[in-house]
C-alpha cells in the first residue's frame, strides 16, 4: 500500500486518490492539491472549452455558409432550371445535363482533363529534381530559389502569358534570335503543345513547393542506411524517396490538376483557342450564351468531378503526420 509522502503533511493537505490495479487491488495515490483541483474541474472544463470552441468557430462557419455553401447550392439549383431562364422559382428539370451529353460538352471536358493530366505529368518530371535539390542539396540557397519562383505569383497570369506571346510569336523575340543564328522559325503559338507549355509554366510553383515539402519528410538516415546496405540510387529513389514523399506528390498533383482543369487563359492567349476548355464553355454559357442553367450544370459537373477526385486522393494522406514530420525534419 502506498503512503503519503512525509513532506505532504508539512504542506497543505494532499488529496488521496484510490486507484484499482489490474489484479483488482486498490492502491492509494497522493497527489498535489492543484492537480486534484484540475481533476475535479475537468468535466466542467471540458464542457466549457467545447462551448468556447463552438463559439469561436461561428465566424468561420458563418463565412463558409454564406460564401461557399449557399452559392454552391444556388449553382446546383440553377443547374436544374429550364435552359435559358433566369429564375430559381421554376419546375426542376434535367434538360441541361441532357444538353451536356448531347451537344458534345463532354468533348471539352475530356480535352480539359487531358490537358490537366499532361500538365501534372510534365510538372512531376520537371519539378521532382528541383524539389529534391531544394529539400536536400541547396541548404541556404533554397530560400533564394523559393523566393525567385514564388515571386512570379505576384505578377498577373495574363501579363506573364502575353509576355510569352511576344516571345513566341512570328517575328517575336525567339524568331529574332533564331534568325540571328541563321534559323528561320515560324510562330510557336496557337497549338496544343504551347497551351500545355503555358500551363506548366503557370502552375509550376503549385507542384514544386508541396513536392519539396514532401521530400523534406524523407529522413536522411533512412536513405543513408539504404545506401549502406548496398541499394542503388534508383532503388533508393523507388523504394524510399517516392513512397515517403508521397503526400507531397499527391498534394502537388491534386493542386495542379484542379487548377489546370479550371484553366482558361493559356488556351485563349497562347493557344488561340485551339482547344475550347470546359472553363471557357462555362464562361460562354453565362455570358453571351445567356444560359445560366447550362453554365450552372457545367459548373456543377466540374465541381463534382473535382470533389470526388480530391476527396478520394486526400483521404489517403495523414495531414497531421505530414505537417508534424515536416517540423521534426527541421533542424
Amino acid at each position, binding site marked *: 500500500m502506498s503512503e503519503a509522502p512525509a513532506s505532504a503533511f508539512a504542506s497543505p493537505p494532499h488529496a488521496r486518490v484510490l486507484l484499482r490495479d489490474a489484479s483488482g487491488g486498490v492502491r492509494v495515490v497522493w497527489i498535489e492539491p492543484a492537480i486534484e483541483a484540475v481533476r475535479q474541474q475537468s468535466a466542467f472544463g471540458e464542457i466549457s472549452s467545447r462551448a468556447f470552441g463552438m463559439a469561436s468557430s461561428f465566424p468561420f462557419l458563418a463565412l463558409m455558409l454564406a460564401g461557399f455553401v449557399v452559392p454552391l447550392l444556388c449553382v446546383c439549383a440553377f443547374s436544374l432550371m429550364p435552359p435559358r431562364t433566369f429564375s430559381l422559382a421554376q419546375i426542376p428539370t434535367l434538360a441541361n445535363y441532357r444538353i451536356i451529353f448531347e451537344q458534345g460538352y463532354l468533348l471539352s471536358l475530356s480535352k480539359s482533363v487531358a490537358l490537366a493530366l499532361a500538365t501534372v505529368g510534365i510538372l512531376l518530371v520537371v519539378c521532382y529534381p528541383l524539389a529534391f535539390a531544394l529539400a536536400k542539396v541547396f541548404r541556404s540557397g533554397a530560400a533564394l530559389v523559393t523566393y525567385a519562383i514564388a515571386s512570379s505569383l505576384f505578377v498577373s497570369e495574363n501579363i506573364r502569358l502575353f509576355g510569352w506571346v511576344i516571345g513566341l510569336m512570328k517575328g517575336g523575340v525567339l524568331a529574332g534570335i533564331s534568325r540571328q543564328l541563321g534559323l528561320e522559325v515560324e510562330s510557336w503559338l496557337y497549338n496544343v503543345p504551347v497551351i500545355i507549355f503555358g500551363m506548366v509554366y503557370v502552375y509550376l510553383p503549385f507542384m514544386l513547393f508541396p513536392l519539396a515539402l514532401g521530400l523534406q519528410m524523407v529522413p536522411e538516415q533512412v536513405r543513408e542506411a539504404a545506401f549502406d546496405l548496398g541499394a542503388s540510387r534508383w532503388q533508393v529513389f523507388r523504394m524510399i524517396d517516392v513512397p515517403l514523399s508521397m503526400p507531397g506528390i499527391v498534394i502537388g498533383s491534386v493542386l495542379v490538376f484542379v487548377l489546370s482543369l479550371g484553366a482558361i487563359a493559356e488556351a485563349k492567349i497562347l493557344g*488561340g483557342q485551339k482547344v475550347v476548355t470546359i472553363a471557357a464553355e462555362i464562361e460562354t454559357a453565362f455570358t453571351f450564351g445567356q444560359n445560366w442553367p447550362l453554365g450552372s450544370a457545367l459548373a456543377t459537373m466540374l465541381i463534382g468531378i473535382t470533389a470526388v477526385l480530391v476527396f478520394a486522393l486526400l483521404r489517403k494522406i495523414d495531414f497531421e503526420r505530414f505537417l508534424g514530420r515536416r517540423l521534426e525534419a527541421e533542424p
Partner: protein
Amino acid sequence: MNSKNGLSRRSFLKTAAVATAAVAAGPFSTLRSFAASREDELNILCWEGYNTENVLGPFRKAFKGVTVKAESGTDDPSMINKLRAGETKIWDLINVNQCWARDMLWPEKLIKPLNRARFEPYIEKMMKWFYSPETGINPFALSPDGKELLGMMQRFGPFSFVINTNKISATTAEDQGFPMFLDPALKGRYGILAYDNWNVMHLCITAGLNPFTQLNADQLAKFEETAEKVFEGAKMISSDLVQLNQALINGEIDLYFTGGTYTSSPARHEGRLEVLGISPKSGPIDGKGALQWFEITSLVNNPNLSPRAEDFLEFVQRPEICKAVAFAEGTYNPVSQMSNPEVFKLFSKEDLVAIQWDTLEEEMARSADYQICPNNDELTDIYNKVKRKRV
C-alpha cells in the same frame, strides 16, 4: 508614455471609442444616405471609354462633390447579367449596343425611359443615322411602340472584317465579302475574333443567310456547315483585338473575322494603315452584307436613381467630351455628334484616317443594324458545338 508622438493612453482610448462608434454607425449612416437622395453619387456600367479620366475627371470638376464610379464591361450580356442579378440597386447608367437596350433591357424592365423634352434637342443634331427629319429618331433608341426614349446614342461604327491591304486588296475584299473566308486559298491565313454573338451573325452572312429572319432546318444546316469550314480554316481565335492586329501586322494572319473601325483603329492610329476594316458591298440582308453598331446609354431602373445620371448624359454631349469618348483608351470610333462642327473640328487629320472617316458614309450605307437574331439560341448552340470540335 507616448507623449512624444502625442498618443497617450487616454487619447488612444478616446480615438478607439470614436472609431468604434463610427464603424458601428457606418451601416446605418449608409442606409440613411441610401434612403436619402443620391445626388452626390453616380455609378456607371459601360463599355470602355466612358470610364476614362478624360471623361470622368471633367465631370467631377463640373459637379463638385459627386463621387463617380464607372466600371467597364467586356460584353453586353455580362453587363445585362449584372442588372438581372439584382445590381439595379447599384447602377444608375448602363451603356450597351443598340439591340440589347430595346430588345432585352426594356422588356425586362431593367431600364427607365429618358425625359424626351430634355434630350431630343441633342438627338436632333446628331448624324443622319441617328436622326432624320423624315423618319425621326433611330428606332433602336425608342421603345417598340415608339413612345419612350430609351437612351442617348454616341459611339458607332461598321463591323464586318479586317484585312492587311499588303496581302489582300480592299476592292477584292469588298467585292467578295464574307464568302472569301470559305476560299481554300485562305485556309490557315485568317484569325477569328471571339466576339461570339457577332460571329453568329457574320457566319450567317458567310453562308448567304439573313440572320435577322427566321431560319428553317435546311438553313440551320447550311449555317453549321459554314461554321465548320470557317473554324477549320482559322489559324487562331482570340478575344483580344490587339492580339489579332499584332498577328495581322507581323504576318501571322492576313485577315480576321470579324472586326471593323472599333478593332482596326488602334493599329491605324499607330500608322499601320495597311490594317483596314472592310464593309462588303453586298450580301443577304436585303442586299447588305455588312453590319454596324452603335452604343446607347440608358437610365437603370434603380429604385433610388441618382439625379446625376441624366446630368451625365447631358454632360457627354459637350464637344470636348464627345472627342474624349470617341478617342478613349483602347479603341477609336466615330461618335453620333460629329455632325456638329464644334465636335468635328476637334478631330485631327490622323484621327479621321484612323477611323476611316473618308469611307464611313459608304460603309454605313452598306451596313445593317446589329440585332438579336430570331434563331439566336439554336445558332449559338450550333456555333459553340462547332467551336469545341475544332481540334
